[in-house]
């Protein structure tokens, strides 16, 4: 491990995080929130200072970056980003450090779980920073770094691969810097489009930007206490549904469409399955909310009686929640904690499916789910037809053995972490549903879970150990385990 190099780039990175706080500071000036302005300036000073110190310490680093440094750098960068990004909350007096770290990690990883009890009482510039961390983390802070700083070379490609979601991230252009800047241009274009749309739907510029950040990053932080429900506008909901669906899809397809290959999504297995799941689950939940299969166990209180909807409302709330949970955004327009059991169970299943590879969404990713099902079916078939040989295909391309094994390994580790996490949260005294869904909602970068961490509640009552652990779950989920887990393997740090 080339420590000096890692230190040097972490330094640059820390400085960059500091500078990225400037827009929030500008909002503090705009809203005349002087204590918050001080908090931002303090946080910028600390970040840039830390960055300069690290950069100075690593200035003699040898330039060559190998796979190991690249991998370590990605994991560490995210931990550092949340560490520094938490400072404005602390300096502004809004939260203590553990809470602030949780909140900031939740922001960068586009989770959207919050410990802020009264959102509308919080300073607007702080809320802007909270949403802006979503936007940065959505496409990836490292990807932004690569797009702006050209000197990473092949090491940059390694870092891109570790940060981009999906089993086999590929570049869109031969040079990784070009890939990164194309992704950011598409992302920026969508950001402008949604902000304008929301502004036209009646939100203020400030609100429009914050909701846009939350949508396109599939994050889920809102500026309203009741999330999107607080705007009470069907138009706003429809705009946000459309952009959530887009944000949960593979950005490489949008690049293909920009090059006039309009049918690219239709040829893509993952996109078709993704769209199919959204439609089918919306229908199922709509029916369920209208009263179909909404019975309760004998002797239990039928909790959902109050929420029996007509078709219009069932479709409106059902579709929003399905899209929000499946794309791992976590906005809500209704308290799904009081929905019938079937709807709630379906939402928890959708949490694990997540968005597409190459999207800003979290979860296992649709393409991996498709691969796992195909691989499992092939195994099953081989028990009664042992001599038949079959290739696993995604969008007509054969998935090679190596990728298949990686996907298996990923899924097993993911489930193990989920099971272990549930045990830990239960040991901290959380009721079963809360324990299960708190881990599921953070590991899959959703945000709200069920029961005590449900749609209209928050995470502030979870013990500190739990908050730290859930923060770890978020970054593990966002970076898809590997680049964080290696940080805990002693051999990874060996000097040799």
């Amino acid at each position, binding site marked *: 491990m080339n420590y000096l190099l890692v230190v040097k780039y972490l330094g640059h990175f820390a400085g960059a995080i500091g500078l990225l706080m400037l827009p929030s500071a500008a909002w503090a000036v705009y809203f005349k929130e002087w204590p918050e302005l001080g908090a931002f300036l303090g946080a910028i000073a600390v970040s840039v200072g830390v960055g300069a110190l690290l950069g100075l310490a690593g200035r003699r680093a040898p330039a060559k970056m190998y796979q190991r440094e690249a991998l370590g750098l990605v994991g560490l960068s995210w931990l550092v980003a949340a560490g520094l990004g938490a400072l404005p909350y602390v300096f502004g007096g809004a939260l203590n450090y553990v809470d602030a770290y949780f909140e900031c990690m939740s922001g960068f990883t586009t989770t959207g779980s919050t410990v802020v009890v009264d959102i509308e009482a919080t300073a607007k510039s702080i809320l802007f920073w909270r949403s802006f961390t979503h936007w940065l983390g959505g496409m990836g802070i490292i990807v932004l770094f690569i797009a702006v700083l050209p000197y990473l*070379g092949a090491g940059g490609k390694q870092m891109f691969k570790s940060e981009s979601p999906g089993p086999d991230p590929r*570049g869109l*252009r*031969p*040079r990784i*810097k*070009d890939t990164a800047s194309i992704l950011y241009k598409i992302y920026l274009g969508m950001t402008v489009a949604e902000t304008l749309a929301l502004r036209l739907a009646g939100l203020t510029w400030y609100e429009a930007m914050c909701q846009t950040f939350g949508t396109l990053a599939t994050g889920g932080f809102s500026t309203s206490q009741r999330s999107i429900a607080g705007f009470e506008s069907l138009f706003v909901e429809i705009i946000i549904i459309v952009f959530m669906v887009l944000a949960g899809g593979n950005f490489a397809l949008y690049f293909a469409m920009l090059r006039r290959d309009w049918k690219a999504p239709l040829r893509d297995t993952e996109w078709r399955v993704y769209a199919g799941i959204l439609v089918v689950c919306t229908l199922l939940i709509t029916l369920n909310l209208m009263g179909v299969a909404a019975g309760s166990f004998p002797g239990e209180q039928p909790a959902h009686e109050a929420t029996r909807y007509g078709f219009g409302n069932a479709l409106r709330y059902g579709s929003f929640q399905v899209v929000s949970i499946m794309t791992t955004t976590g906005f809500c327009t209704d308290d799904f904690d009081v929905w019938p059991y079937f709807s709630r169970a379906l939402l928890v299943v959708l949490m694990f499916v997540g968005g597409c590879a190459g999207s800003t969404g979290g979860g296992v990713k649709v393409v991996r789910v498709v691969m796992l099902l195909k691989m499992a079916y092939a195994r099953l078939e081989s028990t009664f037809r042992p001599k038949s040989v079959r290739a696993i295909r995604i969008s007509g391309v054969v998935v090679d053995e190596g990728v298949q094994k990686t996907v298996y390994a990923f899924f097993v580790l993911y489930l193990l972490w989920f099971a272990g996490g549930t045990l830990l949260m239960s040991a901290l005294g959380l009721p079963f549903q809360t324990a299960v869904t708190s881990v599921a909602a953070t590991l899959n970068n959703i945000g709200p879970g069920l029961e005590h961490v449900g749609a209209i509640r928050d995470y502030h009552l979870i013990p500190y150990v739990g908050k730290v652990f859930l923060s770890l779950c978020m970054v593990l989920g966002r970076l898809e385990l590997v680049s964080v887990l290696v940080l805990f393997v002693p051999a990874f740090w060996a000097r040799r």
Partner: protein
Amino acid sequence: MNIFIAGGGRVGFHLARILSSENHDVTVIERDPTRVEHVDNSLDVSTVTGNASSVMLLRDLGVGNADLFVSAAGSDEVNLVAAATAKGLGAKRVVARVDRPVYVESNILYESILGLDYLLSPNALTAVEIAKYIDNPGIVAMEDFGRGLIQMRQVRVAKTPGQGRKKTLKNICPPGTGVLVGVVSRNGDITIPHGDATIEQGDLITLIGHRERMAPVLQRFQGTDPKPRNVFIMGAGSIGLHLAQTLENRLRSVTLLEINLKRCNDAAALLKRTNVVCQDGTSRLALEEEQIAKADVFVSTTNDDERNIMASVLAKELGAGQTVAVVHQPDFAPLVAKLGIDHAVTPRACIANRILTMVHQERVSSLAVLEEGSVEILEFAVRGAAPVIGKRLKDIQPKFPQGALVAAILRGDTVLVPGGDDEILAGDDVVVIAAADSLDAVQKLF
């Protein structure tokens, strides 16, 4: 530039590395997944696993929009088909690497029939390179610029001029000499030196300057080497045969050592004036028997690097004048000087240098590639509205990229080795030394 390279082996990898470090868009097509992974992990290029001679694959990749398509896979036939296909799809320039003598000998016919721009053989280029060295012993690389008035010579320093503190460049080549030391390579570290830098024995230095002033300056660094008359070549592979063919009519005697009898027979049939001897070039007895001590140059050209290097060391030990080794694995090349071998030639670097020349052809009138592509020397014709016109060199200094240097200016028939007060005028030809990563910026200025 949008560049496709078929084949991620030694040649393909090396080319991809240099071209990507010069900020070109490079895509490597390779059949072997492990090689693809290696390229993918080490270079900032995109990789595709697949067969480069497949027209469907090339079409889907958009090879039709390529500025340059290089097929450098292991098989000649695959390369020819791939290159012809790429040309047919609309690639601007295509180059195929070939090695078999049939293709190499009739390359011009094949080029015109298949519609390819260049057929290049690394082995033939290597032989040409070695022949050049034998013609000008001690000079590792040479190139002429500015209609032949400006010369570049790369030499290994045999003796250090000046004594004690006077060893700095300022004293050896003071301004006004008309020759400048442009690049110094010491144990693989490459620098573009300042006046206070020193030169040590064993350094590889590049001199640029006026044709008429070159010879006396060269002599200060070089021992006196008589023109070679007896040359020994080990290995009758394609490099050895090409070399013997080139040299046999120019020199007094050429001896070709080859261990395999069948290859000896073939070589004897092909070569009229060469002594073909069926002996092992790594055997002390055999070398002594053939009177190696009389050899002015010993060249080892087999496919086995270790044998080439050891045979050269042995030949030197037994009294051969100069030794040259063909080294396929470029990581070994810098070590060769340490073992007392005078010159190492790397086939993949030879072909890569030719291709780089093509890449720069549009903007640059002449070019030399040094040190595996990490430094290039380019000649620009300053015309029209180039941003540097009418500026003094010290004024463009801030904009001029680090790692680049204006080495010589040709104005009419006068050659200037410029100082900070000289300015660049429209109509000048300018020779610039540039590190690979500063090429882009330099090209924008001229």
